[in-house]
């Protein structure tokens, strides 16, 4: 079959690889009908995530048709149309029972390595390095889905791939980021990053009833999309983020701040961003933390900082005194996708939201390696790329 294979930093290719096979009675094989390039795939592409090996099949946002089912899998049958969450969960461990699916204690096949790096292992993820289990990803014609009697979400008839594909990652990710802010009707929610996850953060905060939602970026077309979803836009190339946020909140700062940017923050030429870039280039720091610092600075005392943006390793010069003295709450983590999918699928069916608004490019597998660069460099108005294998 054809699949997108990571070879090296900035080197993703469409290769011919062996077809996947059932390895465990709970498995299923899914024929991928649609998949997407996620912002966190760029961290792999750009060489920021540790634990990648040449030959790894990438991609963790995908859906398709079940074509083979293991003997012990009583939940799925051949022909089912499913969206597959990017987190692989057993459904039986303590964490899964609490709804903390992204920190499942069972599914990470490389637990020892992850224990060493993170202290304790987290869940297995599709196509996202050997630190998260080394599972083959879904930017392929076929994919093996482990624990397929737990994660996959069956899709009812009448909904297109484009409407439901993002239930596997970015929609629940934006939703969880907003939910863990515990949004009140009096709240201002500031969202850093108008990429795909940022867009869903904006819409989730609107649906949950925030008084005002502000979105910060410097890409005009992305900001126009955020404004369409109900946000007030701040272009950090044109105005001072902290001053504007304070102006919008009577000088008190936003109660809730969401970092939908993560480890590769691009900013105006501030002292800390230059410092981060130099240290990162010299391998003395893995992640650029400008957004975290700005959120900690501007967030209202007793506020909440929610971090769906992916960080991979070590950040530097974090003003933790601000966090402590202002009594800020930090909530972060990979998304507990299955915790939210039933509810979000209902909202799509009811017409509350149509997630396909975010798609700007649709390509075949062969053209997808080039789209990684287009997406990374935000060229051609690119916000979200869907791949049709």
């Amino acid at each position, binding site marked *: 079959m054809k699949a997108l294979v990571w070879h090296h930093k900035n080197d993703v290719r469409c290769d011919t690889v062996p077809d996947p096979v059932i390895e465990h009675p709970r498995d299923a094989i899914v024929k991928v009908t649609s998949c997407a390039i996620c912002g966190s795939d760029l961290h792999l592409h750009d060489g920021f995530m540790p634990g990648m090996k040449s030959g790894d099949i990438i991609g963790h946002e995908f859906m398709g048709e079940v074509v083979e089912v293991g003997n012990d899998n009583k939940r799925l049958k051949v022909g089912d149309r499913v969206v597959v969450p990017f987190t692989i969960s057993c459904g039986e461990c303590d964490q899964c029972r609490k709804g903390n699916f992204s920190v499942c204690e069972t599914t990470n096949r490389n637990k020892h390595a992850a224990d060493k790096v993170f202290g304790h292992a987290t869940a297995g993820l599709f196509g996202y390095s050997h630190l998260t289990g080394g599972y083959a990803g879904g930017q392929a014609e076929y994919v093996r889905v482990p624990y397929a009697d737990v994660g996959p979400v069956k899709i009812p008839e009448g909904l297109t791939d484009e409407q439901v594909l993002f239930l596997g990652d970015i929609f629940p990710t934006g939703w969880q980021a907003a939910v863990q802010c515990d949004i009140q009707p009096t709240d201002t929610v500031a969202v850093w990053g108008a990429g795909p996850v940022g867009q869903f953060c904006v819409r989730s905060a*609107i*649906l949950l009833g925030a008084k005002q939602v502000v979105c910060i970026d410097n890409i005009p077309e992305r900001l*126009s999309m955020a404004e*369409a979803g109900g946000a007030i836009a701040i272009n950090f190339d044109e105005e001072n983020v902290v001053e504007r946020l304070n102006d919008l909140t009577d000088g008190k700062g936003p109660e809730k701040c969401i970092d939908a940017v993560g480890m590769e923050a691009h900013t105006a*030429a501030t002292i800390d961003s230059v410092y981060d870039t130099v240290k990162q*280039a010299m391998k003395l720091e893995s992640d650029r933390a400008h957004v975290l610092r700005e959120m900690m600075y501007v967030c209202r005392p007793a506020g909440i900082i929610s971090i769906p943006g992916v960080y991979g390793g070590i950040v530097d010069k974090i003003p933790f005194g601000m966090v402590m003295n202002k009594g800020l709450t930090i909530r972060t983590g990979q998304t507990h996708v299955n915790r939210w999918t039933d509810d979000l699928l209902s909202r799509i069916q009811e017409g509350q939201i149509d997630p396909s608004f975010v798609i700007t490019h649709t390509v075949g597998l062969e053209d997808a390696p080039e789209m990684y660069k287009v997406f990374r460099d935000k060229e*051609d108005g690119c916000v979200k790329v869907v791949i049709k294998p």
Partner: protein
Amino acid sequence: MYAKSKHRQLKNTAKALGIFSLMLGAIEVAAPGTVSRAIGGGSKIARHNKPLLRTYGIREIATGVGILKSHKPAPWIWARVAGDGLDMAALANKFRHSQHGRRNIAIAAAAVAGITALDIYCAKSLSRKKARKRALMYNYSDRSGFLVSPRAMRGIARSYVTPPDMKAIPAPLTQARGQKPPAGGVPESPRKTSGNEGSRLFS
């Protein structure tokens, strides 16, 4: 086609400047005395200038690494321009206070001026390209994702019950402060969900 080859040319110039930065930095760090003597300082002055030249060398290496590692090198080239300014200031200071070797200092200053001009040209061209690209506006103002206006959708999920492990303030504290429930007047979802449906499947 022209634009692409011009862009490639600029990228190559940036790369060359990055390599130059690395080499100059390495020389300044490894042999600051030799560099000082070459630009007109005696051995006593060379000894005195060593720490400064080493610092400048580290700066050159940092900008060189930045230029070569980044796929958007313009900010790093601007950092080189700033560094050129420091170099010129140091040379001017030296020129004022030196009795000997002024000719070598003048040659060094001319060389720095030449490389500064190249830096500025490269940085400006790369920045202009970025600005041109940003001006290509794709308008997504019709992509709300909602069937009706965001104003009408605001709060439609307000009845959603935040899961207990994600509440901002425990309920008793909220009640003690006398907080009122949310104001009405917005459409509400008929369903009340805790967000834990998935986990209940497995408990």
